[in-house]
């Protein structure tokens, strides 16, 4: 599966995602400059983490208007795979490719640490390689990862199984204590209705090698590769 990693001004996890795909998942991957509107034939587009446009005004608010985002919109509309990680998730919400929004952590501070994630709906391109009730150890690093939306939307995404990851404890139990940022229903990751577009605050690309603390992130990225077959 060919991956494309978008580079926005201020992206800073673009190289991390690139290395994870190339060196660990051994898949072809290219960078895509934010000014281009050609995805270089990518099957899966990664909107990486970082501080696109400095996170000024609102996270993801400006990046959403980059020329490349039109191509991403079309790619998604055609059923192409798109995953936004951290800042990428924020951009996808601003671009209305995913429902809801991400606001300031309830603690207001930036948080960098490993968290545990419970994969919810295992029948998606992003989770089918995960196991029932498993707690994935994957780091977060954000100041505005507090997922919110109106009650109707929340009801909808819960009913449609669009919530794919929730913050939980090491035993896989979803609890208030395990919620690092105040997200509604401990939501850490969601998909669109079709399931081809995903967004998550935690960084799977940071958890692909044991030497760095965990390789649980591989499950997420492998899922989409094998789903597409």
């Amino acid at each position: 599966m060919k991956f494309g990693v978008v580079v926005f001004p201020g992206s800073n996890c673009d190289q991390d995602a690139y290395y994870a795909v190339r060196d660990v998942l051994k898949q072809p991957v290219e960078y895509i400059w934010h000014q281009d509107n050609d995805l270089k034939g990518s099957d899966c587009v990664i909107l990486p983490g970082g501080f696109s446009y400095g996170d000024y005004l609102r996270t993801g608010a400006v990046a959403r208007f980059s020329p490349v985002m039109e191509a991403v919109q079309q790619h998604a509309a055609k059923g192409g795979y798109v995953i936004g990680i951290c800042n990428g998730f924020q951009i996808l919400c601003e671009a209305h490719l995913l429902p809801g929004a991400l606001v300031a952590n309830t603690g207001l501070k930036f948080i960098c640490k490993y968290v545990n994630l419970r994969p919810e709906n295992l029948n998606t391109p992003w989770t089918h390689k995960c196991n029932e009730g498993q707690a994935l150890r994957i780091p977060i690093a954000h100041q505005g990862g507090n997922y919110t939306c109106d009650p109707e939307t929340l009801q909808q995404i819960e009913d449609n199984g669009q919530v794919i990851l929730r913050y939980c404890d090491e035993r896989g139990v979803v609890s208030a204590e395990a919620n690092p940022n105040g997200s509604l229903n401990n939501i850490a990751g969601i998909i669109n209705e079709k399931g081809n577009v995903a967004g998550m605050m935690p960084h799977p690309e940071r958890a692909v090698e044991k030497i760095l603390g965990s390789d649980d992130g591989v499950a997420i990225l492998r899922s989409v590769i094998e789903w597409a077959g």
Partner: protein
Amino acid sequence: MIKEPGSKVVDKNTLPIPTDVYREMGLSDEEYKKVVGVLGRHPTYTEVGMYAVMWSEHCGYKYSRPVLRLFKKYKEALDGEGLENAGVIDIGDGLGIVMKMETHNHPSAVEPFQGAATGVGGILRDIFTMGARPIACLNSLRFGSLDDPHNKYLFENVVAGIAHYGNCVGVPTIGGEVVFDECYSGNCLVNAMSAGIIKTDEIASACAKGVGNAVLYVGSRTGCDGIHGATFASVELGPDSESRRPNVQIGDPFQEKLLIEATLEALKTGCVVGIQDMGAAGITCGSCETAAKGRSGMEIDVLKVPRRQEGMTPYEVMLSESQERMLAIVEKGKEDEVASVFKKWGLSAVVIGHVIDSDLVRVFEGDQLVAEIPAKSLADDAPTYYLETEEPDYLAEVRDFDLSKIPEPKDYNEALEKLLASPSIASKEWVYRQYDHMVQTNTAIMPGSDAAALRIRGTKKAIALVADCNGRYCYLDPFVGAQIAVAEAARNLACVGAKALGVTDCVSFGNPEKPQVFWQFKRAIEGMSEACEAFGTPVVSGNVSFYNETPVSAIYPTPVVGMLGLIEDTEKHCTSEFKHDGDVIALLSGKRAASDTDSDSAVCAANDLGGTEYLKVMHNVVAGTPPALDMDAEKRLHAALIEVIKEGYISSAHDCSDGGLALAVTESAIYGNLGAEISVTSDCGASVALFGEAQSRVVVSLPPDMLGEMREIVDKHNVACTILGKVHGDRLKIAVNGVNVIDKPVERVAKIWKNAIPDRMEGRV
């Protein structure tokens, strides 16, 4: 725009600058005379401002230079291609590490968030201006007691500012230190350190060479930020420092991130002759230093400099310290090629002048010549002062303090808990949680161990980094204190399996014009340079901050050491937490003399309470002499440690520093969430055995069946190995001479240690 040399405007200027004006800028009467001597006429307002800022201690090192030569001697003595002299440490495989540490004490005291943030920005530019990609940030912080709301405010915002900047530029902040002591009230210390990686054959130069080559201004537009910030950093903070607030600089980490990527890309074009960041002293520093280094001259037009504010005078443009700006010397004819790289990244890049065949920096405003100064006189000829030194009065008194008068505590559990709750010792998680320490996906050892480590992609290697200094030791004996700072840094590296390679320093002192303060400075640098030679770790860069005092208080001498170490095989590193129930706990200590065979004496010595955290916390006493340091014993300990870690014999290693043996064991237990049962024998009081801070000691844990192998190695290095007990259960139990003095659930001590800082910050205590 070019005018004939010595154009009218300057020549006509025969009027002296009023005394109060140049004095206010920070120039003494003698220095002003020297300027007139150099120019052969009275300076213009712009010129006098340029001299004042370049000749300030902050830029010109006019007081510290003679002493700092101590570092140079050793570096130059080193053979090899002189990489060290370029500030690069060779780690093999054609790769080098560039590192530097710098203070932003005074800006942070005035505006903690922006002060700390711009400190990080400045140090990062020092790294990538050499062509290196920044891969790590560290920071060393000092504040007054957290019981004072203003100190809390400073701490809160300094950490937030560092996080704001470092997280945004995408450089992991992987380590540092934070210490709290009254002496830093009103004189907080904010030292930012950064390290970058570079191919040793791609080091960028900071020279302006080649007549006709263009001077390219890159990055943010120029405003009135921090005008005279450089001189500001060289005067005492008085009550009127509030009114100096316009000196505040605002950082833009987004702009800096673009600058990093664009600069590294631009250097790859091969058309950049030289490049330098514009930090303190702004364009003045950038232009005269590159010109002086390149033995050329330079002509620039301030009207071509992109402005953020209207009506700026040449004086203001030349002295502005607006952030996120670089000055690049570009091959004639290649201006557009280079500029287009910066423009691609959304940065402005404009030609503001060019290199000339002369030794002058000539500044024009349009066709008016407003300054014409020999570059060298600004960059290299700052007056040098050989200041008097005098041993401080307080020393006799603190030395003579009779430590035997200190009573043993009634309850050692209580003592331990009090120490754990002391913010200087307590967990720093509250701090490093706010820093992205994983971005760039190389962090193999995260904050929380003795040193952090980054694997080097494309090799098996990892580098380890630390920042260390015990100001209290340096107050009691700056020479030994500074040596211990170096030794502890190297020991922290050894604890993760890294061999020390090189040092950067950032030393903060009071007013150097006071002989007793300058004595502290001189002794500290002597101690540091001696220790660096002993460990074979050249000082590749550094920074001096003076005037860290207010009318009411002066700081402890605080010579912070930043050290780089190398781990040959990333897989073979070690961390500080206990790992397995049943592991043996042992104390490795460099024997005080190669002949010394009595290993118990290594556990403690009579005066080991001198200058300890224990004395301070329990008795509010800062006295005695710092623990003795035997450099040779220390080196043997490190060698042994690195070898047993490489062989994979031990499960954990943690050095005894603040709080002594008891704290080292407790921290390993807390990190590993495992209990420990140890017993020590001691010929001095239990408090000394538990909390004494004797040097050259490391607590290790290992599987019982590895004991034999480890012993062989440590014996070989003549390092003492004392079995203390074992990792077991969920309680912390310590006996001294057979008497149980400490017995607490790990969970409880962990709580105290982890909550000490958050509770204070969130006003729960």
